[in-house]
């Protein structure tokens, strides 16, 4: 074998291996997707059937039974709403910490991150009671507030690690030209950070969309996002796998497709810029 052939063979083996790993990991999702187009009988056939006449019946039933659109709207409102609010609060904080660091900036950042370590169960009861007393049980308001606070530390940290890498000279030049701090942020920092801000926002949206602890415990029907709607299909009332799959496909499709388009930025974002 020549060196070239050897290299080609190596590439082929790498590719084969990578594809195998990817397909194995993706298989459950593929199977869920396929099953959602089957009849209930086909869904539980042994051996599993791969070729069948697809039906859209399940999707219709899911919409009728659990009002998919209503829950999807809840998911969209809570995840986009809380992400927006968190960004508005986090940008000034990250800006001030990145460009005007004090002695305790690092401590404040680590403290913020450590609030993420606080397990949600530790405060479940008080939050539940507070929501009950203020009539916020099963309300989107409660979820938006909680999601905002839940992701705030990560958002501040991600923006901070991006801002601190911005060249300080640009800001100094702007200041020389008489820019006010407001101008600095709006006309210099923000335009330079569109990428970082959007990848932070993406991550926050994904985390909110898939959040299940608070949505399971604080909502029932009115404000229940998709995570909670799906859980209602877990009851052992029989094997309705096709409908279950249809509901799951509907619940995950928006965020998975959304994720496919921005997976690169997401990884960069989630690793606080540690990986470029």
């Amino acid at each position, binding site marked *: 074998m020549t060196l070239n052939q050897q290299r080609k063979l190596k*590439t*082929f083996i*790498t590719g084969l291996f*990578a594809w195998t790993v*990817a397909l194995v*990991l*993706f298989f*459950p*999702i593929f*199977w*869920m997707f396929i099953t959602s187009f089957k009849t209930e009988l086909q869904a539980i056939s*042994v*051996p*599993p059937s791969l070729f069948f006449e697809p039906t859209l019946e399940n999707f219709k039933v899911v919409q009728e039974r659990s009002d998919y659109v209503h829950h999807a709207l809840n998911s969209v409102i809570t995840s986009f709403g809380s992400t927006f609010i968190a960004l508005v*609060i986090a940008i*000034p*904080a990250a800006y*001030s*910490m990145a460009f*005007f660091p004090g002695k305790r900036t*690092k401590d404040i*950042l*680590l403290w*913020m991150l*450590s609030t*993420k*370590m*606080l*397990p*949600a*169960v*530790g405060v*479940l*009861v*008080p*939050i*539940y*009671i*507070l929501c009950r007393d203020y009539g916020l049980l099963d309300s989107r308001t409660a979820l938006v507030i909680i999601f905002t*606070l839940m992701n*705030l*530390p990560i958002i*501040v940290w991600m923006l901070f690690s991006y801002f601190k890498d911005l060249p300080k000279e640009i800001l100094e030049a702007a200041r020389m030209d008489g820019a006010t701090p407001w101008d600095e942020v709006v006309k210099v920092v923000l335009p330079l950070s569109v990428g970082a801000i959007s990848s932070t926002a993406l991550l926050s949206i994904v985390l909110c969309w898939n959040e299940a*602890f608070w949505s*399971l*415990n604080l909502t029932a029907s009115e404000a229940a996002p998709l*995570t*909670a709607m*799906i*859980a209602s299909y*877990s009851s052992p009332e029989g*094997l309705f796998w096709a409908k279950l*799959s249809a509901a*799951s496909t509907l619940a995950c499709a928006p965020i*998975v497709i959304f*994720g496919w388009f921005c997976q690169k930025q997401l*990884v960069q974002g989630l*690793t606080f810029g*540690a*990986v470029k």
Partner: protein
Amino acid sequence: MKRSITRLLMAPSVIMLLVWMIIPLSMTIYFSTIRFNLLYPGQNNFVGLMNFEFFITDPGFIPAVANTLILLLSVLIITVVLGVILSALIDKPFFGQGIVRVLLISPFFIMPTVNALIWKNMMMNPVYGIFAWISQSFGLEPIDWLSSYPLMSVIIMVSWQWLPFAILVFVTALQSQDTEQKEAAQMDGATGLHIFRYLTIPHLARPIAVVVMIETIFLLAVFAEIFVSTGGGPGYDSTNLAYLIYNQALLQYDVGVASAGGLFAVLLANIVAFFLIRAVGKNLTV
């Protein structure tokens, strides 16, 4: 810029997080010292440390602590070890790299409730599941995963979700590895294994630290997977702390004991976080 303005810009974030931390936490501390059962309203007398005693002597307590730590460590080990190996193996250009990347990351976007349902029904069901079909094809007795190996089933589900994340982070990190260094090592006769051990692993130190930290934050709080799939059972075999406390508070209405449990979970998380932030903090540039 003036100190006061920088403080003002930070204030909303800091104050909101402080409030978010202090109010519920002090309420939890207060509730944990009184008798507080939603079924017996108005009997909220001070009971000292009795709730803690109840929680710690609960038959589910020791299994729950053990399961929480086993779940955390197993998933961390599986995702980091497999993640490093797999990413090193696929870190070369090949056909359809973009599509593979997209397929690989997908499980990370699946919500925990759906994750649990797919695995519980379509993969692990002892009669109709894919695993059962595979075992039968080989003439083996199908395994009832959720009742025979409940904790392992949960570990599989959670690892499935986080392995793609680890792989993707490591692959991205490997792309910034110095190829000249690698080639030089090859010239000097280093084997692939040597390169992996002495060049790749050190290069991945920081990404590994980051992955461990992020996963720990989420793994200590695994809840939906258990809630949907095993319900903590059979017995306490797959109950973790989060689920045990949920059980006390919302199923047995005993807020006092649940609050004591909540404080214990906070303590455990702090112990883990203490070691973690010390270890990882060095690796995060601030």
